């Protein structure tokens, strides 16, 4: 199954351990950095938060790639197997965008309802409708 010798794969495992641990540490550091725990006041800049989020997301996807391809041996399997597993998963990217958009829309709609509820309208004193009131059929 594995194309490496025993000694080589033992070394690769240690390398993998340090790689995953190191990437995780960097992620935590960036997250805390963007939230102003390392340099106070940085969390006031919105774009730093977005940039940090993007970097952390990319690093997490790299971690996922490493786990799937090295630890789960996807790199040594037939290409067809990799496609049947990874292609359906990659379709979820669309769901990500669609549902986050939907979430933002809920927020905007809730805000709109709140604002509309605050508006008070005086009942109109002018005559309503076209028919004269004396023509109404009353019981």
């Amino acid at each position, binding site marked *: *199954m*594995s194309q490496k010798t*025993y000694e080589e*794969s*033992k070394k690769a*495992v240690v390398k*993998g*351990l340090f790689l*995953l*641990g190191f990437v*995780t*540490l960097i*992620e*935590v550091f960036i*997250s*805390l950095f963007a*939230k102003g*725990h390392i340099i106070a006041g940085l969390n006031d800049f919105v774009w730093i938060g977005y940039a940090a*989020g993007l970097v*952390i*997301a990319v690093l*997490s996807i790299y*971690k*996922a790639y490493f*786990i*799937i391809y090295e*630890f*789960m041996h996807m790199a040594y*399997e*037939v290409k*067809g*197997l990799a496609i*049947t*597993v990874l292609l*359906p*998963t990659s379709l*979820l990217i669309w*769901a*990500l965008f669609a*549902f*986050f958009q*939907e*979430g*933002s829309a*809920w*927020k905007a709609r*809730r*805000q709109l309802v709140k604002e509309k509820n605050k508006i008070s309208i005086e009942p109109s004193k002018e005559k309503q409708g076209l028919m004269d009131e004396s023509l109404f059929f009353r019981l």
Partner: protein
Amino acid sequence: METTEKLLEPHENHTDGSWEGAAAPFNISYGKLMMWYFLLSDAFTFAGFLIAYGALRFSSPSWPVPDFVFSTAPFGIHDAPLIFVTVMSFLLIISSVTMVRAVQEGHRENKRGVVFWMFLTIIGGAGFLGCQAWEWTNLIGKENMTVTTNPFGSHVDAGTYLDEKGNATGETFKAGASFLMHKSEAGGHGEEGHAEGHHALAKGDHPNAFVDNQSFIHRKFKVISGPNSGDIETEEFGPKAFGALFFFITGFHGFHVLSGVAFLLIIMINVASGVYASRKNGYEMVEKIGLYWHFVDLVWVFVFLVFYLF
């Protein structure tokens, strides 16, 4: 003349695998292929939960800041944001690595090696579960978070807290700052300085706080920024969905870890008693539980990302 028996003959000869008929698709055993597809379906379940978390978070005007919510650790450590969950992540990564070693020893038919590395994997998994149990106990027991109650709120505008007479104190906060509402009984969260003198208030309205029927203390503050500047407001509960999503998603992941540990234990005992040594497909069962165990680590990468890092 061909008989039915003759047609079936190739099937009878094909006994070296679970596939009936022609060659195995993708050049992989039946069990491993099905494990991959089970993991694919499981990935969709987790993706559904995590996307729901994202959608609800986007739909909420405020959200508890994770580095404030998850800043406590055992042994009385406070204000250590994300440190404890980082330790939990390391535990899972290390147990994933020891699992790779177990699979490698399986390829070499080294029974003792497989048992040793699987044992370390089980220790790692159990350690992770222990950490999660502590985290949940702290959130439920000390910080009073439940599936339907979320005492972690956040301020919309900057402001300053009021004292017992209703006057502004020097204790100010910025817009977007998070807070934790404590309960009125003595010995609540025990975070000194943060809620000093607020632990023994009677239910009802006070100049500096409002105590609700569940004895949560909603502290009062004066807004000092934004359009409502100058108003006196009270702390409100954070978005309810936070508690439900947190316990449901980390609980679902924790249950995967728990069942993983159970299966690892069973397979380790089987290895130790020599079940796989005498079987034709050797230590393939170790490879299969290995795939599952790496998947649990893989899911944690994303749970860690959305709950703790963002």
